[in-house]
């Protein structure tokens, strides 16, 4: 265990997030069991009021999950000097098997909270709490995810001991390496490019179709989800390489540094926008046919779809920019 301020901060935050999420889930169960809009009971009124608390908690949790995702990456950067062979965050996360799992779980939690808040927003537009049951049913696995993330992060830090030998990003993402990250990074760039650009075209096509006809929301959501993953793949495989102008450098974190104009921030922001809003379009599709949402649903879906497309557009722009301005090419 390493007692460092940044580690303490992450553990404290995940402890607090876990505690309030567990509380929210507990209240959510009460809502699932006893919610009955037709009742004029004081308990019903109390439950309705609890929904305000839970949405507030979820918004805070999402904000802190997102911030802690970045703090976790910074912590990786900061701690790397403690480990033999680590030259940046990649090495730090590789010290034990919890590192990357925690990172991925953090991303998943933030995405999950985002989608939940979208469903919640839609539910608030209906005068008869139309989505209350699915919404709180969804809260339970989400809480499980957040608690599991807290556990894995704790596992990661408690299994860290200085002087462990690890590998740096050069080694993890290098040709010789055989790990999963290496194979992802060495997906032939042509294949990754085909997937990426092809995926974007398909997404744009499906988005246009949805905006024009209001149909195909689920397809658009699945494509957005796939595009989120392909985006990460493309980032490892060729986007990073073009930005670094180094055919061997695939690190996903160095992009967050000043040398690369902090391009990682808009890049990850557009990925998250694409992921959350795209998945949101599909998540609220189940509300179709509910009379009290007949007006709110299409409006919300259109907005989400446009936001997801904007994210995809920004992602494409970030990917294509270095190809246009530099004469670096992938051989």
């Amino acid at each position: 265990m390493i007692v460092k301020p940044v580690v303490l901060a992450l553990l404290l935050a995940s402890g607090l997030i876990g505690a309030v999420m567990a509380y929210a889930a507990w209240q959510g169960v009460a809502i699932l069991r006893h919610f009955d809009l037709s009742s004029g009971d004081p308990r019903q009124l109390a439950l309705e009021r609890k929904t305000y608390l839970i949405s507030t908690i979820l918004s805070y949790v999402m904000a802190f999950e997102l911030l802690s995702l970045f703090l976790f990456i910074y912590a990786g950067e900061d701690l790397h000097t403690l480990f033999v062979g680590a030259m940046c965050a990649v090495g730090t996360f590789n010290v034990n098997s919890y590192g990357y799992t925690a990172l991925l779980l953090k991303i998943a939690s933030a995405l999950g909270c985002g989608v939940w808040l979208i469903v919640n927003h839609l539910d608030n537009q209906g005068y008869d709490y139309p989505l209350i049951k699915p919404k709180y049913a969804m809260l339970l696995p989400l809480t499980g995810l957040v608690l599991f993330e807290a556990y894995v992060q704790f596992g990661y830090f408690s299994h860290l001991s200085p002087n462990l030998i690890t590998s740096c990003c050069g080694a993890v993402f290098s040709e010789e390496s055989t790990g999963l990250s290496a194979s992802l990074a060495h997906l032939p760039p042509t294949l990754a490019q085909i997937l990426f650009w092809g995926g974007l075209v398909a997404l744009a096509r499906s988005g246009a179709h949805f905006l024009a006809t209001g149909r195909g929301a689920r397809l658009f959501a699945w494509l957005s989800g796939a595009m989120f993953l392909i985006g990460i793949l493309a980032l490892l495989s060729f986007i990073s390489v073009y930005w670094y102008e180094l055919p061997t450098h695939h690190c996903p974190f160095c992009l967050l540094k000043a040398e690369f104009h902090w391009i990682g921030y808009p890049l990850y922001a557009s990925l998250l926008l694409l992921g959350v809003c795209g998945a949101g379009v599909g998540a609220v599709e189940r509300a179709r046919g509910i009379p009290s949402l007949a007006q709110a649903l299409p409006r919300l879906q259109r907005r989400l779809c446009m936001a997801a497309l904007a994210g995809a557009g920004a992602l494409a722009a970030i990917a294509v920019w270095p190809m246009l301005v530099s004469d670096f090419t992938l051989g």
Partner: protein
Amino acid sequence: MIRVENVTKVFNPGRPSEYVALRGVSAAVPENKVVVLTGPSGSGKTTLLSLLGCMARPTSGRIHLGEREISSLPERFLAELRRTAFGFIFQSFNLVPGLTTLENVMVPACPLGQPRHQVRDRAAALLEKFRLGGKIGQTVESLSGGEKQRTAIARALINDPPTIIADEPTANLDTALSLEFLEIVGQLRAEGKTFIIASHDAIVHEAQVVDQVISLRDGMVVPAGPHDC
């Protein structure tokens, strides 16, 4: 038109402190009229007023606002109705202490998300209309009773609601100021507003401007009085 049908309100049901404030009340408030609820204290007029004003939900019975049934709406829709359909004037004015007259008048407009300069201009115009133009930047503690009352009226009008609800508006005013208040009520009715006023003040019941009086006793409506039309 606001209608209540067979409305009951029970506080603390099932507890030793259980208290039935309204027992099967039915009443209607037509548009562009001044309706007064009257009755001794404990008769349920304040409770009825708060149900009409969407501040609470009835234990049973229905409330219709125009064509819409609102008695089982979720809280946020009731809040939305309170800020768009109603303006409120309270017995003790209930201005927010420490804030200026202008800020107080702007309070009900905060959740609407209108451009601030518009809200500010509207609030200033209302204060001007009620002869408070010179008091805009003063905190409300420095106002006299009549000025406080007029500030409260300006605040009730900021979102331009069709209906104004007033709870014992003259209780803290002397006769001259009470008459002034009723004069303002008359002006506003002429501009198309509906008024629901709870009061046991004789000045109010006997005023020319009142169209209808609903008397309550022990949570029930007492059969129609002389002012009924």
